C-alpha cells in the first residue's frame, strides 16, 4: 500500500496580492505557501503511514522553485517526491493540469490498496476541479470534501463535509480522496526530517518523461491544450466600513427592515 498526494504551491494571499499591469497575477512578487487543503491531504497520508508504515509520495506540478516546497514535505515525513515541470506544461488550466498529473500518477503507479490524495481546491484558482478530473482520468472511485478518514484493510470510510451536514461513504482502494483543511492540523517539519530531506529521492518528470502517455498531447496540455482562458485578474474594490445598528427595540428593528427593503435584500 502507498499514498500518493498531489500538492500545489500557491501565492500567500494573507499578504499583499500583486497583480501585473496586464491583469494577471504577479506570482514572482508574492511569497508562496503550500496550499492549505493539500497540507491536510499530506497530513492524512502521513497519519496512515504512522499507522501502517506505508510509503507516501508527494507530487506537484509547477516551476522548478516548487522543489523547495516538496523538500519541506519530505521534512515532514513524506518518503519520495516528484516534481512535474516543463515549459510545455506551463499555462495549463484545470483540464490540462489533470491530464498531466494523471499521467504522472500513472508513471508513479497506482496499485491495489493505494490511495491518491488531493486537496479540495487551491486558494489561487478555487476551482476544486483538478482532483475529480484526475480520478476520472485514472478511472478511480473518488470522494470529495473529505473531513474524516478511517482505513480498514481495503475499505476506506470517509466523512464528507457538505454545506448543510456530513455524508458518510465507504469506498474501496484504490481510490482518490480530495481533502478539506478541517480534516486535521498538519504536523511541523522535524529537525531530523529537515536534516534528511535533501537526501530523500526527488524525481523531476518533464515532457520527455511523460510524452508517451496517451494523456499527453499538445492539444491537451499547456496553454494550447487549455479550454479555459483567464481574461483578467484583479483585487476586488475595498468595501466600505458598513453601518452598525445597536438596540433590540421595535424602532431599531423597523429601521433595519426598512434599510434592507430599500436595498431589495428582503
Amino acid at each position, binding site marked *: 500500500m502507498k499514498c500518493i498526494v498531489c500538492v500545489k504551491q500557491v501565492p500567500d494571499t494573507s499578504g499583499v496580492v500583486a497583480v501585473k499591469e496586464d491583469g494577471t497575477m504577479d506570482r514572482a512578487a508574492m511569497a508562496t505557501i503550500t496550499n492549505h487543503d493539500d497540507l491536510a491531504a499530506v497530513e492524512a497520508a502521513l497519519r496512515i503511514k504512522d499507522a501502517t508504515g506505508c510509503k507516501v509520495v508527494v507530487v506537484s506540478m509547477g516551476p522548478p522553485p516548487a522543489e523547495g516546497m516538496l*523538500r*519541506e514535505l519530505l*521534512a515532514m515525513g513524506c518518503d519520495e517526491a516528484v516534481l512535474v515541470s516543463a515549459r510545455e506544461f506551463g499555462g495549463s488550466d484545470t483540464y490540462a493540469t489533470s491530464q498531466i498529473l494523471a499521467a504522472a500518477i500513472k508513471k508513479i503507479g497506482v496499485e491495489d490498496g493505494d490511495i491518491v490524495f488531493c486537496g479540495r481546491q487551491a486558494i489561487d484558482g478555487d476551482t476544486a476541479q483538478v482532483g475529480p478530473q484526475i480520478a476520472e482520468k485514472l478511472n478511480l472511485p473518488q470522494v470529495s470534501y473529505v473531513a474524516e478518514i478511517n482505513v480498514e484493510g481495503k475499505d476506506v470510510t470517509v466523512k464528507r463535509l457538505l454545506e448543510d451536514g456530513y455524508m458518510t461513504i465507504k469506498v474501496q482502494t484504490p481510490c482518490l480522496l480530495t481533502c478539506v483543511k478541517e480534516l486535521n492540523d498538519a504536523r*511541523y*517539519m*522535524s*529537525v*531530523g*526530517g*529537515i*536534516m534528511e*530531506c*535533501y537526501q530523500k529521492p526527488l524525481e523531476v518528470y518533464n515532457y520527455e518523461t511523460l510524452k508517451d502517455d496517451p494523456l499527453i498531447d499538445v492539444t491537451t496540455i499547456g496553454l494550447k491544450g487549455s479550454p479555459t482562458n483567464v481574461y483578467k485578474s484583479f483585487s476586488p474594490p475595498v468595501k466600505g466600513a458598513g453601518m452598525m445598528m445597536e438596540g433590540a427595540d421595535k424602532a431599531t428593528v423597523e429601521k433595519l427592515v426598512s434599510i434592507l427593503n430599500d436595498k431589495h435584500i428582503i
Partner: protein
Amino acid sequence: MDLHLSKEQEMLRKMYRDFAENEVKPLAEWVDENEAFPEETVKKMAKLGMMGIYFPKEYGGAGADVLSYVMAVEEMSKVCGTTGVIISAHTSLCCAPIYENGTEEQKMKYLPKLCSGEWIGAFGLTEPGAGTDAQGQQTTAVKDENGNWVLNGSKIFITNAGYANVFVIFAITGVSTDKRGRKKKEISAFIVERTDPGFSVGKHEKKMGIKGSSTCELIMEDCVIPADRLLGKQGKGFGIAMKTLDGGRIGIASQALGLAEGAIEETIKYTKERVQFGKRISQFQNTQFQLADMHAKTEAAKWLVYSAAMKKQNHEPYTMDAAMAKLVAAETASDVTRRCVQLFGGYGYTREYPVERMMRDAKITEIYEGTSEVQRMVISANLGVN
C-alpha cells in the same frame, strides 16, 4: 567566515518560527503570570527533535549543527524567554558535558533519553558560597567501601531542576598540594539521577523574570551513586565545568539575542499603530533613531553569537568568542528591552504588552552562566591583560 545559512538551516529557521508563533507565543503570558513550567510545549519540542538538535543520530540526536541549535533558542526566546532557557540549559549544560566527556556506556545510557526529551537535564555547579567563585565548592564526594560515591552538599539556582531527571553535579573529591605547597580543591563531575537515594530537590526560587523556568535548590544527603557515574576523569571536574559553561554561554547569548529581537519586533508593530499628536509615533525621529540603534546593536550581537556557534561546531577555540557573544548579547538585550518599554510609554509598563516581561527576562542573561563581569575577565585574560 561564511554566514550564509544552508538550505537546511533556512528550513529549520522557518520551522522554529512557525512553532514559536503557533505553540509558544500564545502561552508566554500564562507561563509568566503563573510561574508555570511549560511541560506540554517541552513535549512538543521533544517530538520535533528540539531537545537534542546538534547531537549525532547514533545517540538519538537530530544530527544538525550548533548554529541550528542557537537558532532554536533564539526563535523561542523571541516570544518566550522561559522556553528558550529550558532548551539551552538542557542541551548545553547536561547533554553537552555527557556527550563531550562521557564514556560510551554513559553516552548510550543518557543521551538517547535526553535527546528524545523523555528525560530533562540540568547542571549543578553553583552553591550558596560558590557563585562566580566556582572554586569555593563545599559539596563533597567520597568513595565508600563498595566503590560507590557518596555525595553531600547542596546546589542553588539550578535551572530545570524541578522537572529534570538527570543532573551533572560537581563535587570535591580531594585536596591536592601544588609545587609551592598551596592546597587546591580537586573537583570532579558526576551524573546524578533524580531517583538516586539521598537526592532531593529543595526550594523553588521566585524570580524577577523567566518565571516559568524551574529554578530550585538541590540537596544531597548521603546521596549514593555507583562508581560508573563519575563523568570524565577524577579531579578534572573544574575543567569540565568551565568548558561546559563556554558552550552554555552561546546558548544564553542566543536567548538574549532572541529577547532583543522579539522586543524590537513588538515595538515596531506598536509604534506603527500608536498615534500621538496626530501622528503614528513611528513617524517621530526619536522612535526611528532609537529603533535603528537597537537593530544595529542586535545585529552586531547576532554576528558574535553565530560566529561563536560556528567556531564550536568547527572545533576551533571559542572560549573568548562565547564570552564576547554573551557579554554583548546580554547587555544588548537588557538595553534594548528597557528602551522598548520606554517607547511603549505607560502601556509598556503594563502586563498587557509583552515588552515588560521581555525586560524582566533579559536581566538574567547578564547574570547566569557567568556574569558580564566574568565575561570581561575571560576576554581580558585571553588578551593577556593581567
